[in-house]
């Protein structure tokens, strides 16, 4: 099985879809000659030409909005918003238009649009280039939300997102791009709405997304040396959410930690905690612990930045706290 980086895996999904299907095309800022600010789309211009790999002006409203219009006409556009912080400019089109056209039209219209974006802290991007905003979109009926944490997942989930007939917001994490992993030669679409159990365990379930999946796996390893057996589950699709797998895991382990890089308050971990406390109430032996960023805009100086966002140690501490209970 060949090894691809997370970056290459995303690119591979895009390239294959572009190759097989004339209705797929890309739009975004600096995705052509430059290959994207994260080098994800490198080489695609050469293979597919400027009609299908479209550099856009700095117009986040129009990028998403024109993607919607093209999607309604039967195309499958994949648009890129360079940093998810700039999704703040596209919210109207995403939330009021893409998510609602189908319902408002009584089922006449479908919007098979994929919005790729990325973000995350690391190497001091500062407060306006590092947010993790996936929780907002989970609150919007009509959108699907994906957050891939491994090369294999990134490719299989992006493929499914492109071929889903609904608008999908597809989150990538900036620090994961160089991450390597086995990815099968044959592209296996990964169905949206299916969690992945990364590691089985008996004592605590960590439900983690994005970069924190890897931090959770490190923490689990460490916890193992302390005699704590940790199960790590990545929902991968945040909406629709695989509640069944997650709740079953916590019913088994009886303890739970949620972990993401986004701010804890109002984050996706809140939704997870609400679902889990409901579904596994009689099984839980400790309160669900939430790990995430502290409540502050991300400062520049590395020491402050690293303090704000969570790491493996934070997950480990939460695991210990939850085990220490009763």
């Amino acid at each position, binding site marked *: 099985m060949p090894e691809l980086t997370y970056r290459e895996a995303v690119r591979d999904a895009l390239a294959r879809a572009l190759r097989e299907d004339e209705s797929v095309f890309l739009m975004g800022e600096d995705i052509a000659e430059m290959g994207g600010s994260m080098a994800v789309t490198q080489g695609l211009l050469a293979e597919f030409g400027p009609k299908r790999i479209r550099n856009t002006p700095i117009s986040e409203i*129009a990028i998403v909005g024109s993607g919607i219009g093209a999607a309604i*006409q039967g195309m499958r556009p994949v648009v890129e918003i360079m940093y998810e912080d700039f999704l703040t400019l596209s919210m109207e089109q995403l939330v009021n238009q893409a998510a609602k056209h189908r*319902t408002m*039209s*009584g089922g006449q219209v479908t919007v098979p649009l994929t919005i790729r974006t990325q973000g995350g802290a690391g190497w001091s991007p500062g407060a306006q280039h590092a947010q993790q905003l996936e929780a907002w979109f989970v609150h919007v009926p009509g959108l699907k939300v994906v957050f891939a944490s491994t090369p294999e997942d990134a490719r299989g989930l992006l493929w499914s997102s492109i071929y889903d007939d609904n608008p999908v917001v597809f989150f990538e994490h900036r620090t994961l791009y160089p991450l390597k992993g086995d990815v099968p030669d044959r592209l296996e679409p990964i169905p949206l709405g299916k969690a992945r159990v990364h590691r089985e365990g008996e004592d605590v379930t960590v439900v983690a997304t994005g970069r924190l999946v890897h931090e959770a796996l490190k923490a689990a390893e460490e916890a193992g040396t302390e005699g704590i057996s940790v199960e790590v589950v990545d929902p991968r699709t945040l909406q629709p959410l695989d509640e069944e797998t997650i709740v079953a895991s916590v019913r088994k382990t009886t303890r739970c930690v949620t972990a993401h890089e986004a701010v804890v308050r109002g984050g996706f971990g809140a939704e997870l905690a609400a679902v889990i406390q409901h579904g596994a109430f009689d099984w839980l032996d400790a309160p669900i612990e939430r790990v995430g960023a502290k409540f502050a805009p991300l400062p520049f100086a590395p020491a402050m930045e690293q303090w704000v966002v969570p790491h493996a140690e934070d997950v480990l501490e939460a695991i210990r706290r939850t085990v220490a209970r009763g």
Partner: protein
Amino acid sequence: MATVEERAESGGRRVSEQLLKTFFREMLLIRRFEEKVEERFRAGELPGFLHVAIGQEAVATGVCAALERDDVIASTHRAHGHAIAKGTSVERIMAELYGKLEGCSHGYGGSMHLYDVEVGNLGANAVVAGGIPGIVGAALAFLMRGEPRVAVAFFGDGATNTGTFHESLNLAQLWKVPAIFVLENNGWAESTPATQQLPLPVDELARRALAYGMKTIEADGQDVEAVYLAALAAREHAAAGKGPVLLHLRTYRLTGHYVGDPQVYRDRAELKGERETKDPVELLRARLQLTDEGLAAIDAQVTAEVEASVEFAKAGTDPSPEDAAKYVYA
């Protein structure tokens, strides 16, 4: 929408009396429809937010007549006229206002979200300028696939103040997509007059296009013939691959912003003056020299059509409550 034959008869650039009569009938239908909407609203029968375009009928009729059936439009909160002119029956629109499954959006949309994809209506939009970027994308799809279609966005003067408008027109011109941007300039955004919302003289709003180097075509929005010819020219330009057009139509909103608006902000004498001199239905009637009888005959027809639409709507089927969740995902 005029048929190809009707347009041919008009000799391409001159409008036949017959076609003008067709326009008149449609404009009167829109007028009577919206008067009925006001009446049924006052009777307490219609939920939701309603905006009529009384005074702006020539825009809807003139523009849509210049389009082909395969062309698409995106409409606004002031949507009834556009929907009728693009080819949706008044029955299905009225049923929509009553929230019935038979409605053109099957009861999910209401007045501000009239869709009818079959005739190319991609939906009215309750967010000002919200539908414009989608039209750029539709036009882009036509361009990429080499289809001889154009995409048309309706919007008001107030919408030109939005960032959404700016990014859309800018991108459309950059990529030379076959789109027409119909600026339905009635000089008001709700209660806010042009002087309080536009940094340009209201009659010079076509200058917005200068920021993009976009072609503009202008016409008197109260003169359906002028609108029609201007729209034909715009369509020709866009469809020929020469890029999008800003079609600037100066028009008048002869009623309140919404149905029920007391218009405390509006000068009564001015409004009265506009009603007397700017009514596009009256102007066309005069031009066609319709006799009272001639008028009455048409009026009886369209009034009956509107009445029937109310009957149709009332006899329609209410959705079940749980239908609400039917179309969240495809």
